[in-house]
């Protein structure tokens, strides 16, 4: 994971702990497993740092379950912009068709970082935490196109993108602003990628998940998954051989 941000972030002088340092630690790779099972509000931090409300929702992905169909990307672009463009998808699937499972594929979703570097980096307040849901999102009217948010994201690829067609930054808003969808989105509604993923490799949680350098520690694969010949263990090494399923009733 590469820290691409060289901008200066105001430090929390009183503690000597800069928000920048904290953000890098949380969102990036500075610590191995930083938030196991804990809610963000449980952290004891100086007021100067604890200024951004936590997101009320997070996307969980199981990269070992993903089929690489990129339907999530198509759904994301469609509900937000009414058109199809993988470059405008706020979740990205990157894969090597010749790769070896499970290293062949990454699911790159926004983590809704507790201390979001993208929000921190924005000079105009365009990148902000939504008052209602806490989702880190862009007020497009305020975006001046400086791309500091794009560069500040500690992940690769950046979870904040420059929308080159509409000329503003964009990032996952948990589907709060989806003008082209007949369903209510957002932290209390549905998320298009979750709804569309045919492998159910993406899920939504209100609790901040545990994460490591490889991302969230998530296993969404159950016995049904094993039955059709796919591994269900965390490492993706073991295909279970369960007892035969009951035969369907003859007609």
């Amino acid at each position, binding site marked *: 994971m590469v820290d691409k941000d060289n901008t200066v972030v105001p430090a929390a002088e009183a503690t000597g702990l800069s928000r920048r340092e904290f953000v890098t630690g949380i969102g990036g790779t500075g610590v191995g497993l930083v938030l196991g099972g804990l809610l963000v509000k449980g952290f004891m931090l100086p007021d100067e740092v604890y200024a951004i409300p936590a997101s009320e929702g997070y996307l969980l992905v199981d990269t*070992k*379950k*993903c*089929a*690489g*169909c*990129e*339907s999530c990307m*198509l*759904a994301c672009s*469609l*509900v937000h*912009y009414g*058109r*199809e*463009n*993988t*470059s*405008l998808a706020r979740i990205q699937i*990157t894969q*090597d*068709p*010749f*790769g*070896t*499972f*499970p290293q*062949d*594929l*990454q699911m*790159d979703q926004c983590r809704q970082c507790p201390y979001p570097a993208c929000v921190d980096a924005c000079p105009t307040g365009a990148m902000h935490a939504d008052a209602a849901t806490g989702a880190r999102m862009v007020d497009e009217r305020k975006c001046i196109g400086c791309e500091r948010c794009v560069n500040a994201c500690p992940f690769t*690829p*950046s979870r904040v*993108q*420059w929308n*080159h067609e509409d*000329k503003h930054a964009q990032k996952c808003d948990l589907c709060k602003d989806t003008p082209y969808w*007949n369903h209510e989105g957002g932290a209390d509604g549905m998320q298009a990628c979750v*709804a*569309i993923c*045919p*492998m*159910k490799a993406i899920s939504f949680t209100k609790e901040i998940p545990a994460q490591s350098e490889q991302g969230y520690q998530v296993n969404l694969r*159950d016995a*049904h*998954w*094993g*039955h*059709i*010949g*796919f591994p269900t263990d965390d490492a*993706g*090494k073991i*295909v*279970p*051989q*369960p007892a035969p*399923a009951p035969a*369907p009733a003859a*007609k």
Partner: protein
Amino acid sequence: MATGGYVGKILYVNLTDGRIEEIPTSKYEQWGGGHGMGSAVFFDLVKDKTIDGFDPENVVTFMTSPFSGTLTPSASGRTEVQGIGVQSYPVGWFTRANFGGRFSAELKYAGWDGIAIQGKAEKPVWINIVNGEVSIEDAVGIWGLNTHEAQQKIWSIVGGDEAENGEWRGMSTGRDSGRTTQRPAVVTIGVAGENLNRNAMLLHDSGNSAGQGGFGGVLGSKNLKAVSVVGTGSVPVADPAALMDLRMELQAGFAYNVEEPVLEAPMADFPFYGIITRSPGASTVMWKGKDHPNRPQGCIGCFRACRRRWENGVANGDGCAESTYWMMGTQDENMAATHLLDQLGLNHYDAKNYSYLLALYKMGILGPGMQIDTKLPFENYKSYAFIEAYTKAIANREDIGADLAEGFARAAEKWGRYEEDTTSGILALPNWGFSEHYDPRIEVEWSYGSILGDRDINEHGLNTHVHWAPQVQAMVKQAPLVPAEQLVNLIAEATGLEPEGWDYSPDGIYADAKIAAVAWHRHYSRFWIQSMGMCDTAWPMLVNQVSEDHKGATPEYEPRLFEAVTGTVLSYEDSLELGRKIWNLDKAIWVLQGRHRDQEVHTGYVYSVPTTAPYFLPAKVDGVWDYSTCVGRTLDREKWEGVKTRFFELEGWDPATGWPTRATLEALDLSAVADELDAAGKLGA
């Protein structure tokens, strides 16, 4: 005029003089997309339709559809390839092939609805498409590479290689040209194509191949190694909310629910049963997950993900018959053999006829110093060393591979064995030199459709329900989920035809209802499968094997998807008419190439060698529907001639020749096509 689905222009590249031009898509929008557009573009660009497939004037088209790159389920990722082929025998018909993956989507994002390639480059080249920028690049360092290496090399040139994995990459100097995390989508030939092999295929990513037609050899003859495309633009969708709703509805009603499956296979790790349940990874029928952990893998936008990507990275994305290429070794060896085919760029469906060579070897006809002299290690034919040497020999034109590179039909002809061995059936090439796929004596939509067309039709939407579902359930000793009578009634309801259209009894296969069903199959497929790029393993969704009422999604959903994406209303009936129009245009091209009804006859074994293995299909015997084992069946030569006559009459073609008439063509707004046939003296009476 559509308000969505199309991105506005078709790319024309002439490799002889280096011309790169744009054709407005609007000129061809009336054809829908894909195959229809490809046939029409070919018809306009190729003035002399009698040229050979290796002639530089031959045009190869790569066409997308309005659905490409969208969320339309199992319809987003397929690219239709057309041109005069070099594989079919005895004539290289104007033909088609098709591959999945994400090339079609990437082409749309780059702003192109299709590509037409004509001419022959002086030296090996590849075509580089980055959004609107198109260049013909020198293929030094790429020519000679296998299909995997060639793609990786191009990624290292365009962007997206190992070092850049997952990075956002800009398209040019300015940020407003957009960025992508995706690797360029590359379709390439292997050494088989470079060596003008008539069975050479095109490969994209891993396991996405355009197999039939010998388009690998055709591109090889043009000195064209690969086409690469990457784009950052948008595909407009007329009614995005409706498309999203339709996708969710179809997914809820017709996709396999991985968390709460309605029905599961009777044993674990048994992909074959996925034909019934539509479970992910179902196409890798011969390979098990227990030895090699893997993930399901789907083409872009697919909700089925029928293939797999493995822990050893071998044969990623290969499925269906490709997984049956070699079955005599360990799973590792079997997968390696398929992997090798892919890398060399060879079509499995011809190469698999090594079983015929083994027969000749056992008969003492083929071997060292024999009539067909070969040093290939037939004495160790059960070893991987054999299949490896054999496969490489074809790709490299070595040993008897020099003959087999011309295809098994032409090789057998050269050896003086074609008539005898296709009559006895030890060389089972029922139509136009293509290998037997489904039994031509019984499952006749397939064999009639193939011989009345140009290739093995390879359309599984109907076949899944009439044949595979009862066959797989017989394999596991289950009673059919959908009884035969209910099945044919459901299909009749979905197609608007009579239930007797799906009667495979000895009389049923010659009945008028069957002829109407064959015509429906041609017209439906020409439009929805080949022109709209809907995957044939998913569409038409005639029956839902696992739901309570078993009702399929066809014909309700196809027109709704078309309207949501394009903004234009197209009734199911009109879509079939458009399919019929495209089918007539294709037929006209074949007639210009010399087609006559006298050629439309299967090889001898189809009429003389009875079937022996149980092959389940619905049949109505003494007024009662059941799934029949169909054993002991042949096709009757005289009755087939009668079927042809009635089929031509139904299509409005001259029954004496099979040629379209002016009246039929003009009623389809194809006057110019009628004029060209007239000028050639080939208009039906």
